[in-house]
């Protein structure tokens, strides 16, 4: 299985969910200046074809519901990169009534990039770090999600004020 | 052996006795009428069976022709005689159930006069006698058309009266012209001496006869009265008018042109084109006609034009086709008008709109109407088809390409409005099944049976058609019968 593991680490297709202000950092990463394609990472339009889900900013409850649905639409193995301090602990919206504080409670995050909107070089650094984690087989957020789905579902239900919540499948 | 003369005399006599019968009992009038027509029908059958072996000469008042009035019945006369009496008999049955406005006995008197006159026209051998019978049928027809005394009936009746009388006076002028030149009134005699007339008088006589009889035979300029009269008249009257009377007028015209005035090229061409124009004009004006009865009236005028066109061609095969077409026209029009009468009872007006879906309400009548119409259009394996095909074959034989095209165009137009009508009859959802009394359906059934029978075995009529055509074509034979050694 080494070949698959190696190819999974070398060819990553990324779908960035532009929620907050982080999205503006993506174009320089993709284009000539920093060129993430060198690492085999191309932006993909649909969750179906994506491997990485890049959450690029703070998450209101409303957007969180859509994020979870796109996450469920992706095929395994899938990785989530939390982008900027808002996903880590709510960042400057730490006491806002509307934003989600800790993304990790709702979808498994493999990698966080600190910084109140990190620069492209730290994004590239994150991608390189992710490649190593995949190669070593550490990036298994999707396994964690599948094993304790119940825990995630209760968290999600709590924040969506509904007693039982399923993403897409009725 | 029943002498055909009785078929004329008895109806005339009974007609005048009608008031007494109605005095006896109101209901008996219908049955008496039926009895007389039945007798006529019987006489017609007997003569029809004998006529093929040889023509029958009946002399009145004992004196030998050409001095006395004589009746001469060749295959042509026999065929038409049977046709008229048969159709009249069916109408009589149909009338048993029809409601007729008071006074009923006068209606039946006029009807009897009409049938007697028509029979007389086709049997007589004397020109003046022809005029007399033309007058009898004419006057009784004017009465019948206006019998309902409603606005449409009166209007139609008056128009028919005026045009009819103008026509018959012109015919009388023609007869007088001939009499002054030839000195005799017997058709065969005139035919024998026609060479004596100079060309102008011959043509003048022809013009008089053409216009005179054209009114009755519904040719183009003279047939303007037809739609109003047919629409206004009581439905059985329309039926008898369109089938019996128009054929009688046609017979008179043909007899005069072919036998009396010798069928010259100029005459026949005029007949041909007059017929063609009548056909086209009638079909075209029927296209946008919303009232079904008036539409069928136009179609019957058109068909008459077609028959005259066929006679106008003059060849032996053409005449046979024309006669066969005339027979089919009688059958189809009978079916159409009678079934329309039955439908008329179920709905108030006869407009196309309020007859929508009648075919589903009266399935049998609808089916019969469709068969009658389709036979007229020339659906194969119906009698109309064979006559139309033979007519077109004869047109092609005479290399008349333009008329062929026009006839085909006319039949396409005819197909359009008949199928539109049938389509309208059958649209709409299923209504309650309310079929009419069987006695009223019987005549229509008989006519449709004849259409189907002729459709599958047209050969039955072939000998009669051949004989009639031969009778028209060789005038000397006709003259020979009357003047020569034929014993009465």
């Amino acid at each position, binding site marked *: 299985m080494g070949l698959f593991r190696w*190819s999974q680490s070398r*060819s990553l297709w990324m779908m960035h969910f532009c929620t907050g202000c982080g999205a503006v950092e993506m174009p320089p990463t993709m284009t*000539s200046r920093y*060129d993430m394609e060198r*690492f*085999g990472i191309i932006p993909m339009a649909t969750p*179906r074809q994506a*491997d990485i889900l890049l959450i690029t900013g703070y998450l209101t409850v409303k957007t969180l519901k859509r994020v979870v649905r796109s996450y469920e639409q992706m095929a*395994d193995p899938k990785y989530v990169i939390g982008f900027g301090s808002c996903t880590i602990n709510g960042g400057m919206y730490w006491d806002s009534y509307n934003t989600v504080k800790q993304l990790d409670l709702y979808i498994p995050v493999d990698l966080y990039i600190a910084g109140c909107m990190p620069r492209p070089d730290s994004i590239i650094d994150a991608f390189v770090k992710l490649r190593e984690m995949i190669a070593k087989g550490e990036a298994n957020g999707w396994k964690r999600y599948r094993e304790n789905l119940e825990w995630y579902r209760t968290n999600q239900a709590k924040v969506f004020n509904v007693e039982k919540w399923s993403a897409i499948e009725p | 052996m029943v002498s055909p003369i009785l078929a004329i005399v008895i109806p005339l006599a009974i007609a005048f006795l009608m008031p007494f019968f109605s005095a006896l009992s109101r209901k008996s009038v219908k049955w008496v009428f039926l009895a007389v027509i039945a007798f006529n029908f019987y006489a017609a059958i007997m003569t029809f069976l004998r006529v093929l072996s040889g023509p029958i000469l009946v002399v009145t008042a004992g004196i030998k022709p050409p001095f006395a009035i004589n009746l001469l019945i060749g295959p042509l006369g026999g065929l038409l005689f049977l046709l008229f009496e048969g159709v009249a008999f069916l109408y009589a049955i149909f009338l048993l159930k029809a409601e007729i406005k008071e006074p009923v006995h006068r209606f039946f008197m006029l009807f009897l006069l009409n049938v007697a006159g028509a029979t007389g026209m086709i049997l007589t051998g004397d020109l003046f006698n022809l005029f007399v019978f033309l007058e009898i049928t004419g006057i009784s027809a004017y009465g019948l058309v206006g019998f309902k005394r409603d606005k449409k009936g009166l209007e139609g009746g008056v128009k028919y009266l005026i045009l009819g009388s103008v026509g018959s006076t012109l015919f009388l002028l023609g007869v007088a012209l001939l009499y002054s030149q030839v000195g005799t009134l017997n058709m065969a005699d005139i035919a024998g001496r026609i060479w004596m007339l100079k060309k102008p008088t011959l043509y003048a006589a022809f013009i008089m006869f053409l216009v005179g009889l054209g009114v009755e035979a519904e040719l183009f300029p003279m047939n303007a009265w037809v739609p109003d009269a047919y629409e206004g008249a009581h439905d059985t009257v329309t039926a008898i008018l369109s089938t019996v009377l128009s054929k009688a007028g046609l017979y008179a015209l043909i007899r005069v042109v072919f036998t009396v005035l010798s069928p010259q090229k100029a005459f026949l061409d005029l007949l041909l084109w007059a017929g063609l124009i009548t056909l086209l004009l009638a079909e075209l004006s029927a296209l946008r006609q919303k009232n079904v009865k008036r539409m069928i009236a136009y179609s019957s005028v058109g068909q008459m034009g077609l028959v005259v066109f066929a006679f106008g061609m003059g060849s032996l095969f053409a005449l046979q086709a024309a006669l066969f077409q005339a027979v089919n026209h009688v059958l189809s029009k009978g079916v159409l008008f009678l079934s329309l009468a039955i439908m008329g009872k179920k709905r108030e007006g006869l407009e196309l709109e309020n007859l929508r879906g009648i075919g589903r309400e009266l399935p049998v009548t609808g089916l019969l109407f469709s068969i009658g119409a389709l036979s007229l259009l020339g659906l194969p394996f119906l009698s109309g088809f064979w006559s139309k095909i033979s007519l077109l074959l004869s047109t092609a034989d005479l290399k008349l390409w333009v008329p062929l095209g026009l006839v085909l165009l006319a039949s396409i137009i005819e197909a359009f409005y008949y199928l539109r009508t049938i389509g309208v009859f059958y649209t709409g959802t299923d209504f309650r099944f309310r079929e009419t009394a069987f006695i009223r359906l019987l005549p229509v059934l008989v006519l449709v049976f004849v259409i189907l029978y002729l459709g599958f075995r047209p050969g039955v009529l072939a000998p009669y058609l051949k004989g009639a055509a031969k009778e028209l074509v060789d005038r000397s034979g006709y003259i020979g019968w009357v003047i020569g050694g034929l014993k009465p």
Partner: protein
Amino acid sequence: MVILEFFLVLIGITALGLLYGGIARKWSARIQRRYGPPFYQNFLDVFKLLGKKNTKSHGVMFALGPVIAFTGIILSLFFLPLGNSRPLLSFEGDIFVLFYLLVIAPLGMALGAGEAANPNATIGIARGLTLMLGYELIFFLSAIAVMVKFNTASLWKIVEIQGTFPKWNLFPFFLSAFAGLIALQGMMGEKPFDLIVAPHEIASGPMVEYNGKYLGLLQLYHAIAIVVETGLFVNVFLGGGSILTFILKTFFVFMLAVTIDNIMPRFRIGQAVKFYWKYPLIISLLGILVVFIWR
């Protein structure tokens, strides 16, 4: 033996296609002054996709779509001469058969994407089919000029007639070849005609619902399709020669298409079809006129 030879050809062509894809991405990156992925990146992509688990399917037809697409393109390999080596079934079908076989693959993909009931996919398919109305006709007209001149419909015979370099069809039929090139651009879905997969507008068109191994299969199909389509053009216009020259020629034609792809913006679908019915149509008709005058 024939089966072994066929498998060799199949794997070889697939590898070739993926290689072309990798080099094309490297070449486009270079044009945009960036390094771009390693040339074997396409291989990695395919392996990653085939290794995906928990792929989602919308039904039998959805799963069969890529399979039929793959079948169609494998089938056309049977009839495509590679350089001077006769194709396996050259006696069994000629260029018209090949034209109709090339239609099976888009049909398969369209049926699969249709089952996915995603409006993006259907709009992509509608665009693809409409575009086909444009380029197929032009390619046919340019090929028919050659066929009428040599009075043959067998692709193998056309290749034989051309022989070596100076006798290519490119020079006598220059107009038809030029029109053929424009049609090829549309056939391969390169910009300005990449309306089918327009990522910005309809999120990669018909492939929007495909994930995991289905997408891998479609990548393999796309790879072979590149070689087959350019191969068809090469056989008709750039003549025979050994397999190596065939590879070089197809590579060069493909690189030409990729360069144009990097420069041109994208047509609207209405414009694209109208464009095809204007200029390339006139050029190919002129090409045919030339054949008539020349004959």
